[in-house]
Every structure is written in C-alpha cells, then in structure tokens.
C-alpha cells in the first residue's frame, strides 16, 4: 500500500493556493490563500495536519512544499524592495497549478 501521495510539482512551478475556508486545524495561513507563488523546494511528505488533529492517521502523507511569494503580490501596498519575498510551507492538497 502506498502511504504517500506522489509530488505533482517541482521547483520553479507556478502554483496558486486554494481559496477555501474549511473548519478545522489548517496549517495554511489565511493571508496566503488565493495567492500565486512558485515552488521553492519539496520538503518531504508528512501526514495531513487536518486529519491528525482529528486523531486519524493523516495517511497517505501529503507532499509539503516551500512556496515563494513576492511581497508586492501579497500586499499591494507593500513598502520595501521589489524582490522582497515571503516563503510559506504549504501542503500539496492546498495547491493548484497557476
């Protein structure tokens, strides 16, 4: 039995974070939902936190990525350098290709 979901993104891929507001223990910060960024690296695969919080196994494990966003995309009135960036860990089931 395969206990890990296969990674579907690679570094450099453009992704959009799902704009969803389910209840429960979600590790995707609100401010980043709906934002477009690029995959910085695959961090490995980990049991889903939403499931773990319900005392279930969280399996199959979901790939976890670090996704890089430009600050000026996330905050239109951002003050700082044009290259200033924000990196957030996001699970694959929260990402779609952009």
């Amino acid at each position: 039995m395969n206990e890990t979901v296969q990674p579907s993104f690679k570094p450099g891929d453009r992704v959009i974070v799902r704009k969803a507001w389910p209840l429960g223990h979600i590790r995707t910060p609100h401010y980043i939902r709906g934002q477009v960024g690029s995959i910085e690296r695959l961090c490995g695969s980990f049991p889903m936190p939403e499931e773990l919080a319900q005392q279930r196994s969280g399996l199959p494990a979901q790939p976890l990525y670090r996704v890089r966003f430009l600050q000026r995309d996330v905050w239109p009135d951002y003050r700082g350098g044009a290259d200033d960036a924000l990196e957030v860990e996001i699970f694959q089931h929260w990402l779609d290709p952009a």
Partner: protein
Amino acid sequence: MNDDHGRYQPLSYFQLMEVSLRELLVEKGILTEEQVHATVQDMRSRGAERGAAVVARAWVDPGFKARLLADGTKACQELGLDVPALRLIAVENTPAIHNMIVCTLCSCYPRMLLGLPPEWYKSRPYRSRAVREPRAVLAEFGLALPDHVQVRVHDSTADMRYVVLPMRPAGTEGWSEERLAGIVTRDCMIGVAVPRAAGAAPRP
C-alpha cells in the same frame, strides 16, 4: 496561584487543562512528577548556545556549511545535536539577501537550537507584522536594511523549523570557534539582528 502583587488569580482554561492532564498522567503511572519537573527544567535552561555553536562551525568549516544548508537536521547530528521529528532548514544571509523567521499560526521555533522562544516571538504584533511589514519590524529591532537587500520572510507553518545562518562579520578573522559563537545571539538566528564584531569583549 498568586500573581506578582500577591493577589489570588484563578487558573486560566489552559492552565487548568495542563494541571488536570499532568495529574492524570501521574496518577495513571505514565509519568512521574520528577520526570515532568526535570523536562521543564531542561527546557527552561536551554538557551541559544547550541544554535550559536552550529553557526560558528559553519563559519569556520565551508564543508559543514554546505552540508548544513543542504540538510540542517543531518548537519546538526554531526555536532551531536539531535533534532527530533522535525526537520531543520538553515537559510543563509548574504550581502544580497536577509532572512527572517516567524510563525504566523502559533509559535513554531527551532527550540532544539535556540531554547524557548522569547515572548515577543509569540506575540500577535510580531506574528502579524513580520509578514506584512518586515522592514518596519526590523527597523524597530535596530536593523535598517537598504532597499537593495532582499528581505525574505519564512513563515514556519508546518513541519519544518528554520534557523538563520547570519553573515560572519568583518573583523573576526582568526577568531576561535568558541569566540565566534559568543557573538551569535538568539536574535541573529531569528533574523532580527546581525552579529557584530565590535562590542564583543575580546577574550585574553
């Protein structure tokens, strides 16, 4: 329980939960009071010296630095530091990039290297402002960065833990690893400060 002014304060919801859980674990023989006490003492006594040792080693040993940046957890094991369960990512400051760490969701922090997080790290203002206006936050810590330095904020939201590998300051040539570790503060490894050679008292 008494506060600083000697007034009686009822336990908060979470304090009550902690006491209940602890008493149940002890009552059922899963833990002893001594074990709980020893663990709390161990956590409280841990400071940022482990992290400082890792940074100092990276400064003097390019091979170690490369391994640290490639796999922080494994590199720490070389120094006998076990980073249990969670994975460590070291992010390197360069003349062009400054890194800063936050956990907007709670207070995830590389405790195995830095000890318990400072109160401000867990505060709402830091957690919300670090991702929204990092340069203003850094300026309040006394770190004004020019616009050509890219500020990269790492929101520690899931299973990784981050530590900043600061730049070795000029004027520290020939310093021993131990002396170098002495200028690597907790704040340098969170990314709200940078190590400075001046101000560190030279050792005889």
